[in-house]
């Protein structure tokens, strides 16, 4: 028979465990909720002081006063601001983000369409940024002062300085129009559009699920350029931060200790100096990923990418508050989520924080 006696201690143990974990979890939930509430409140009230009349987006500029009033009432804009806000929060709690006035659809539906597009691009972008940026930063730091270092530094600084839309257009002109290496704007060639059933909303993934490599290759060739440009920007940031973290580490005494032990240079750099910077690096990467997930309006516009950045901007310019709030909420959630993940990784990777 299995160890029965243990079961008697189980409830007590569970209780203790619940206590141990419940407090921080509750605290975290409360904090997150408050952050969200703050986020919503700020967005909401900014949205209301913007001198754009949200009703106009619904009724257009030729509507009569009666139609205007009716729409205003239907949108609930005639009530006190605080009531509107409370109402909105209540709705959100029930999982309803309302209807967008500029697309005339539920915001949730819109977000389910635009967010995966951004997610797909940002993920590839950050992957490029990390895959190239980290080694470049490490390399530059290990050879501080050499010409490789200078080249990498200048390259990284360029990534800070080049306007995104300019690079996007030039990229299109060169790689799409000039060399024909990549496909043009948009997520996919139109005659491939709508063929694979959307499962995740990520075209690359969906096409693989459907087993259609043609579509996969096409989507890949569409996403390559914008993602590469985003990748370049995050690469710049990541390489820079990596280099600077690495320089800090390389001047640490324990790196000298590692050398005293006679370790190979590779080991000194990648194991000893790089080890401790994984944590701050993850924070940096997390933040720049979150930044990419906000959606780059510029890149999305240039590449006709139906992403969340564009959606949010258009909504904002039309004072389409449900859409703005919904999108902000999603972005805020992503931000908080990524922050949490990097916190967890932090704890896993840095013994000092345990």
């Amino acid at each position, binding site marked *: 028979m299995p160890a029965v006696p243990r079961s008697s201690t189980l409830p007590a143990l569970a209780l203790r465990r619940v206590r141990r974990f419940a407090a921080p979890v509750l605290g975290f939930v409360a*904090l997150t909720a408050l952050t969200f509430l703050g986020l919503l409140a700020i967005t909401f009230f900014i949205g209301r002081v913007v001198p754009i009349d949200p009703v106009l987006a619904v009724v257009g500029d030729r509507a009569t006063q009666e139609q205007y009033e009716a729409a205003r009432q239907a949108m609930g804009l005639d009530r006190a601001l605080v009531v509107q806000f409370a109402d909105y929060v209540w709705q959100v709690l029930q999982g309803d983000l309302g209807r967008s006035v500029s697309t005339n659809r539920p915001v949730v539906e819109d977000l389910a369409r635009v967010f995966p597009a951004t997610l797909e691009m940002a993920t590839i972008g950050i992957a490029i940024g990390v895959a190239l940026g980290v080694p470049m930063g490490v390399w530059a730091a290990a050879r501080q002062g050499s010409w490789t270092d200078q080249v990498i530094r200048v390259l990284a*600084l360029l990534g800070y300085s080049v306007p995104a839309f300019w690079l996007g257009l030039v990229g299109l002109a060169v790689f799409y129009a000039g060399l024909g290496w990549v496909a043009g704007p948009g997520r996919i060639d139109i005659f491939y559009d709508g063929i694979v059933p959307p499962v995740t909303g990520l075209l690359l993934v969906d096409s693989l699920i459907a087993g259609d490599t043609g579509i996969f290759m096409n989507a890949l060739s569409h996403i390559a350029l914008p993602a590469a440009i985003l990748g370049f920007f995050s690469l710049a940031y990541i390489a820079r931060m990596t280099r600077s973290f690495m320089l800090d580490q390389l001047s640490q005494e324990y790196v000298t200790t590692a050398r005293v032990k006679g370790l190979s240079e590779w080991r000194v750099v990648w194991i000893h100096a790089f080890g401790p910077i994984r944590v701050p690096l993850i924070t940096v990467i997390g933040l720049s990923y979150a930044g990419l997930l906000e959606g780059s309006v510029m890149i999305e516009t240039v590449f006709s990418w139906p992403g969340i950045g564009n959606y949010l901007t258009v909504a904002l310019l039309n004072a389409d508050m449900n859409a703005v709030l919904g999108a902000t909420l999603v972005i805020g959630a992503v931000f908080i989520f990524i922050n949490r993940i990097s916190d967890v990784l932090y704890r896993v990777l840095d013994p000092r924080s345990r």
Partner: protein
Amino acid sequence: MRMLSRDWYLDDAPASRLQANAGRFYRAGGLLLRNPLAVVGGAIILLLVLTAAFAPWIAPYSAVGQDLSARLLPPSAQHWMGTDELGRDILSRVIHGARITLMIVALVAVISAPLGLIIGAVSGYFGGLVDKVLMGITDVFLSMPKLILALAFVAALGPGIENAIIAIAITAWPAYARIARAETLTFCQSDFIGATRLLGASHGRIILRHVLPLCTSSMIIRVTLDMAGIILTAAGLGFLGLGAQPPLPEWGAMISRGRVFILDQWWVATMPGFAIILVSLGFCFLGDGLRDVLDPKQGGKS
């Protein structure tokens, strides 16, 4: 003159406050000058400042004078950077635009860095509830999409370069607050803060006189590095049409307007683009150099 000799600056035992401070700057300056990138960066910024100061005298034409018959001319001896869609000389506009860029950069630095600095320092110094509340607010701002926040503020305040600047400043401070807080945390437990408290100094005095000066160097570095981003955000607002009012020659707005010509009249968007890249690079180089010089963590440690 003894006062300005090298030895005077480098005297190990300065005889006056002035000499001590001068010596500090001299040393930093000397280090900076030995850093090639920093020199390049400094030169670019100096160029920017001079250009801004003497714009009306340097610029060959007026920044707003239109000549519809001479529109979209490619770069030539007369118009070194060509002309834009209203026949204005792009070089002159870029030169005059230096003033706006300088103003954006200076104002944002003046508004958001101190704001972030103070919020971060207060938060880190007091800790506890104050910290939780302030960092909560910071997080809220931080987790909001930056451009959107700026857009919303510009939309709320109305168009115009001043409002764009305020909007950018509002979005920029949270990052500084975070840095300042982290930095404050590293030394707010240190003995010299304790010693000052023991002297009976008030919290205000400690934060202002002891905590802030220590955060400033990393802040200066950060701000110079962020300048590129600030210029680009301003340009982004211009791109979305919410930055400077026409016909102000704001570089971002110029690129934004010129982008439809990018395939055929490349110079309209590219020239101000180069200006932005150059100045951003200048700030980045300088910031990098400053980090090598000012950052106590780098070098100078035995």
